[in-house]
């Protein structure tokens, strides 16, 4: 928008009264500042400062020049003399009302924004060393819940904006928009800012796809005249964060095992029998599998960029290399990203942008079973021979191997490989044409191509099912996508009335092809599909999706006091039946900038900004994948080498869009130029939820896609930033955010369930999404030591029972938190800054699925157990008040029940960093504009009662995962990084 304004500003005005004045703009350090917008107040006439920060403009005496630049307060200058050369010094801004907020299809100044949006700029974003933008956002934006579910290098995080508004499986992540175009790729180091659009007033422009919120990413462009270089290096160490999960050592497990021999009559441990099978020397055999499976690992990141601009041409070019070793054996991730952003102004009418982003990555991943065995192998077994070589173990290996399964995971890891390679390219072409001074045309286009290949290999040397055979599985995926948005934008400034707007059409399509091959019978030492000699299999298919949209928006403001934005979008997708494939998404947002009213300015001095906002709109969610409405037979199978068609999906030709009606009320305040406060209230109702409605299994189908019921997300969000102390050399900032969301289902005809690994969640009216329904655990019968569950009789009376099958499944908790948020603080003294941030979550429950194994009652006597919590007690004799049943009387005690459902609340110190900006004289001595060194610790500490790996548990519904259910995961990392950043 800035650029458009700038060119629109070039209006021919050469009336005799005018004469040219010149001047120079400086920043706070007295460096010249190129690229500053200079506009004559009340007109669209303007210019920008050149490479040397100089400007010249035709003015008449008495005109007021307005100087605007991102990150600086607006300056005004009244022209008193037409011959004088003016010097203007820009002052950095804390609460900059004219800061441009990137909103996707259009940009707005903060003043104009009438909806709930949050902006996070690069400096705030890059306080964590990661390749994932989600991790960077954690705890920084109110209403945004970020879960780093895995510490696997290269893995992303899960982002949920304002709760969960859809319950179908599949993509639940917000929509990403990179540089104004839906989709795209980027390296976090190239990001200028991230805007999170939270209410329909803002997301309405993305209509059908905006249900889950929108994250707008803007990459850097050249901003100043001189070519500027930035070099950044980060080198660090990380260790696995096992949370409260600690496995038993030899002695502890020996003591645990002895409980198996507690005599049911005498209630004493029958030591004669016990020692007979478990020799006493076991207690001192202490191999620490977890500590040997997870080792400290190194992470490094190097980033070099150059940028510059002049009147015609601006560019930003960067290269980034990221190398992240994993803490688990044989895992890691490497990525190279290259970006080239250019902007060229042919003349005052026409400009274009060409952006390229290219990335290549490769990662080494872990096999679930290898990690499973690393946690569960007994400390009495040692994976290494006496000579230091790695032991081969299988079912026929002589000698005792205590662990349940006859396998040495370290040997398997040594002799297998799971990796992937990816490559991707995005090319953006944007053409802007200023047709008249009020009308412009813009065409934004992107071509995307990405390919990735995964490789899973097990050597014939490895023990296990592929012994003597070997195994290879490779999968290749290709994505081609294209999008074009073409729109007309208008801009009328009629004194106090200002109207802007746009209308256009967007076409989006993509196809995905994949194929896989699998084979066995590999000669030792070879790991490509060509050498496989037996059980060769292939598979693959391709999918196609189209998406067409009409987009429009009108913005009106009166005297910078009253603002109104209305948008209307129509979307059509191939994912729904032809009769139901189009939907309309209107939205409207209004705001009142009270602080621009005269009465306010005259009477209120402590408050420098007050804005009231309201918005209402409709958004949708088409992410259900193709062809969900059709009755289908799957052909990806065979019988006796003949094609076979298997009943796959029940038809529903009435299937249509999920639509969310979003209502938002907000208030923005700023006091003493020091404290800023944003408060939002929202009520989002998603109708026609797309639900996989459970069918009686006797239909031959588990479920059918239907529109059923609705979900209401209500919430409050608070964002507070304050400069607590500010002197010339010392500054103390604090930030805090809080979001409470409640989630209620309604309009569901019959309650339905989702079950993974026997753990069930119920979907019923008046309950939250992801409500656990499980037999309720009542502890241990003090007389018998047997487990107790609750049985609810037909008349509603309750009684304890020791028979699992009599236990009544009840609602016992929910996976969604009551509130989430974060806090941060920074202390700066001269060049030194100490920064710390925290994230918190409260009120969610986690089903600790792995403790069914690690905290069993003798059901799995040969897998290692978790070190118990201090208040756990196993029943020994009648009268004991215990938490754990007698091993002699524990029938079905580890079956799914609320026994393993735990409070998942946590507070986490996300990071602490200490950075030092070298004094100017030192940095200029080495020809640097600016040098910053910093030391940073990420994921420092977590407070939680949850007894397992760290409490960041998945929120996605996947093949093996259920929201709020923890399984063995790649642990997150504690990370300690040293960074140095040179600007020159």
């Amino acid at each position, binding site marked *: 928008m800035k650029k458009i304004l700038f060119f629109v500003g070039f209006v021919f005005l050469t009336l005799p009264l005018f004469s040219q004045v010149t001047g120079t703009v400086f920043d706070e350090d007295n460096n010249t500042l190129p690229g500053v917008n200079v506009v004559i107040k009340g007109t669209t006439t303007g210019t920008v400062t050149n490479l040397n920060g100089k400007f010249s403009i035709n003015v008449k005496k008495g005109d007021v020049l307005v100087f605007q630049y991102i990150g600086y307060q607006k300056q005004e200058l009244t022209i008193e003399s037409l011959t004088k050369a003016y010097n203007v010094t820009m002052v950095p801004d804390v609460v900059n009302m004219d800061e441009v907020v990137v909103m996707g299809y259009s940009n707005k100044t903060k003043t104009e924004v009438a909806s709930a949006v949050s902006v996070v700029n690069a400096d705030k974003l890059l306080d964590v060393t990661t390749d994932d933008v989600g991790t960077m956002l954690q705890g920084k934006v109110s209403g945004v819940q970020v879960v780093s579910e895995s510490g696997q290098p290269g893995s992303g995080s899960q982002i949920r904006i304002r709760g969960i508004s859809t319950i179908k499986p599949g993509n639940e992540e917000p929509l990403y928009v990179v540089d104004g175009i839906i989709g795209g790729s980027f390296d976090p180091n190239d990001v200028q800012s991230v805007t999170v659009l939270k209410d329909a007033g803002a997301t309405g422009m993305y209509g059908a796809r905006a249900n889950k919120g929108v994250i707008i990413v803007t990459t850097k462009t050249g901003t100043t005249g001189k070519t500027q270089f930035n070099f950044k290096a980060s080198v660090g160490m990380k260790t696995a964060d096992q949370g409260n999960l600690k496995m038993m050592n030899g002695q502890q497990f020996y003591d645990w095992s002895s409980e198996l021999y507690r005599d049911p009559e005498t209630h004493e441990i029958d030591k004669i029998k016990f020692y007979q099978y478990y020799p006493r020397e076991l207690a001192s055999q202490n191999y620490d599998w977890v500590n040997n499976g997870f080792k400290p690992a190194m992470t490094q990141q190097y980033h070099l960029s150059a940028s510059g601009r002049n009147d015609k041409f601006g560019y930003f070019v960067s290269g980034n290399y990221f190398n992240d070793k994993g803490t688990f054996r044989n895992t890691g991730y490497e990525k190279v990203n290259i970006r080239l952003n250019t902007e060229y102004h042919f003349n005052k009418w026409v400009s274009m942008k060409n952006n390229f982003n290219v990335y290549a990555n490769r990662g080494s991943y872990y096999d679930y079973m290898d990690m499973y065995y690393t946690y569960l192998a007994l400390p009495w077994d040692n994976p290494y021979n006496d000579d230091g070589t790695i032991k081969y173990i299988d*079912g026929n290996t002589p000698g005792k191997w205590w662990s349940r399964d006859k396998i040495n995971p370290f040997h398997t890891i040594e002799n297998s490989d799971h990796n992937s390679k990816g490559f991707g390219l995005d090319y953006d072409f944007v053409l802007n044409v200023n047709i008249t001074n009020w009308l412009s045309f813009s065409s934004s286009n992107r071509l995307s191509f990405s390919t990735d290949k995964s490789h899973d290999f097990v050597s014939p040397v490895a023990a296990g099912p592929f012994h003597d055979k070997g195994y290879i599985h490779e999968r290749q995926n290709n994505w081609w996508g294209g999008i074009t948005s073409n729109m007309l934008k208008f801009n009328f400034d009629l004194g106090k009335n200002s109207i802007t707007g746009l209308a256009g059409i967007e076409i989006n399509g993509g196809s995905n092809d994949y194929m896989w091959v699998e084979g066995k019978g590999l000669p030792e030492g070879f790991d490509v599909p060509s050498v496989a000699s037996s059980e060769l299999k292939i598979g693959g298919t391709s999918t196609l999706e189209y998406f067409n949209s009409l987009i429009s928006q009108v913005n009106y403001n009166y005297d910078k006091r009253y603002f109104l934005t209305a948008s209307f979008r129509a979307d059509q997708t191939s994912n729904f039946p032809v009769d139901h494939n189009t939907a309309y998404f209107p939205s409207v947002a209004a705001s009142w900038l009270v602080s621009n009213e005269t009465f306010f300015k005259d009477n209120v001095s402590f408050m420098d900004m007050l804005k009231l906002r309201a918005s209402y709109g409709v958004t949708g969610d088409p992410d259900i994948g193709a062809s969900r409405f059709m009755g*289908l037979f799957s052909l990806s199978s065979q019988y006796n080498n003949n094609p076979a068609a298997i009943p796959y999906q029940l038809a529903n030709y009435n299937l249509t869009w999920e639509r969310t009606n979003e209502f938002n009320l907000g208030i923005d305040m700023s006091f003493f130029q020091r404290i800023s406060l944003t408060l939002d209230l929202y009520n989002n109702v998603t109708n026609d939820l797309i639900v996989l409605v459970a069918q009686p*299994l006797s239909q031959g189908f588990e479920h059918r896609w239907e529109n059923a019921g609705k979900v209401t997300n209500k919430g409050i969000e608070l964002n507070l930033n304050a400069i607590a102390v500010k002197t010339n050399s010392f500054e103390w900032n604090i930030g805090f955010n809080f979001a409470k969301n409640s989630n209620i289902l309604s309009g569901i005809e019959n309650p339905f369930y989702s079950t993974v690994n026997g753990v069930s969640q119920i979907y019923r009216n008046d309950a939250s999404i992801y409500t656990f329904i499980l037999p309720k655990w009542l502890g241990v019968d003090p007389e018998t030591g047997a487990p107790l569950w609750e049985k609810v009789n037909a008349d509603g009376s309750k009684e304890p029972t020791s028979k699992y099958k009599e236990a009544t499944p009840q609602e016992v908790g929910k996976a969604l938190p009551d509130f989430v948020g974060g806090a941060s603080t920074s202390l700066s003294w001269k060049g030194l800054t100490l920064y710390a941030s925290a994230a918190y979550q409260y009120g969610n429950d986690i089903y600790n699925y792995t403790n069914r194994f690690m905290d069993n009652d003798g059901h799995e006597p040969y897998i290692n157990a978790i070190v118990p919590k201090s208040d756990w007690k196993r029943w020994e004799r009648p009268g004991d008040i215990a938490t754990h049943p007698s091993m002699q009387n524990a029938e079905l005690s580890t079956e799914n029940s609320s026994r393993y459902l735990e409070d998942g609340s946590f507070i986490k110190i996300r990071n602490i960093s200490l950075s030092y900006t070298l004094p100017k004289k030192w940095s200029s001595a080495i020809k640097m504009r600016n040098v910053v060194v910093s030391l940073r610790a990420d994921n420092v500490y977590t407070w939680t009662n949850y007894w397992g790996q760290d409490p960041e548990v998945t929120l996605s519904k996947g093949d093996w995962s259920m929201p709020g259910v923890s399984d063995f995961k790649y642990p997150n990392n504690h990370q300690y990084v040293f960074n140095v950043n040179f600007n020159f």
Partner: protein
Amino acid sequence: MKTKNILQSVVLLFVLAVTSSCTKWDVAPRDQISTESLSETKDGIINVTNGVYALFKNQVEFSGFIDDNNAYLRQYFQMSDFASDDIVCGQVTTDPLYYSFTYTHSPDQSNSRFFWYVSYKMISGTNTVIDIVENSGKIERTPEVNQILGENYFLRAFSEFSLLKFYANLPTVGNPDSDPGIILRTTANEPTKKARATVTESYNQVIADAKMAASLMNTSRGKEFASKAAAWALLSRVYLYLEDNANTIAYADSVINSGEFTIEPASSFPTYFPNAIASDETIFLIAYTQQDNRGKFGSIASMIYSDGNSGWGEEFASESLRKVMAEHLEDVRWKYIDTLYKDDGTVMTKNGIPIFYITKFSFQDGDPNLSSPVMFRISEMYLNRAEAYAKMGDEAKALADVNEIRKNRGLEGSLYTSVPSGKTLLDVVLEERRIELAFEGQRIFDLVRNHRDIIRKYWGYHIKGIQVPDIDPNNPPTGYPELVIPWNDPSVLYYIPADEILANDLCVQNP
């Protein structure tokens, strides 16, 4: 650039945009076929029929993912034989297969839920074909089409019968006219919710379907597919369960007299199962090709056999079965029990239980995890007939049939001339049936339908809570409640899956 040119280019871009928006909106998947288009080709109904066979062996997505453990036939064999006295449990496990040993079933257990689900998925496939052939009018009724139609009737009968065995009282147990049987789904557009038919009604449906199948199938597609003889064999077995002796004999006769099948002789019986497809013993099997090798995590063999790496090898031939066979070590059926020895010549144990691996599901193409499980074979027809004769009191004919089997199993020297003392004629027939059909998913039902208790007075982890030192190899276990399960114990039945009851409140749960 002049304004006019700019405007022209803008218009041009819009035209481009609009023309390219004439997108094709009905995007069909590339690896799936819509139900509507199935009837448009003859291949459509053949492919769906093949799909029903494929469901016997496929690991089908269930509860959101594909679990290697879950395949119809794996559950078919495990849920029956692990509950019988033929197989002993060598290790406690969290795999629900363990509940078959301990009789601690729950409506939530995934193996049983999967079995129920896939059974009905098969039925749904058959109903689609039956509906298209009989009602769409688009398919000409050639002999080939009738064969396909007949196969679908057969497959529906087979699925219904298998469901009845696991989830309903056998017809000789309880009151078949009032006891709940299964939910009968016989058309392509069934109401979502439906109650269970009675046991009698359910068996009537099985018989009607199997008879229809027998009449339609006249151009066999090979032993990998259902045939007229397979339908007769099914009818013989169903009538045996109903104790309709005359019909049991009649349909066994039909198969035997067809001349297509001969009992595998003793010389080649030890290699019969890995090569069942090529044998005249086989009436119908489910073909597994190399690409169907389910490996350690999903094969039928992996639980009961391991070459050290190929499987879990946790369940073994029971002491009870071995005792019955101990009299005749020359019996070639011992070849399917593979003893694992230590270097000192004693039998290796796992958790205190001696390892006698079972190899009836191994060694097709030499692979320890690959086999094409036999669903019907000629020897069973002799044994069905023998049992019917025995129940009719015809000792000569019953023993003749039993001897027909023994002649081909290396026991030519030990043929029966009369019923040995201390045994009844039925004992003799059932003992032979037990040895011949061991591990083939029959034993548990043979016991229950003949009102015989399941007696497992041997060491194994069906006894809850025992530890290795509890096992005394020299003395049988005593005093544990799990050692005898009465034939009429309700825990013999599996529960109707919780998912069914929740979504179909007309369906009643088992006790």
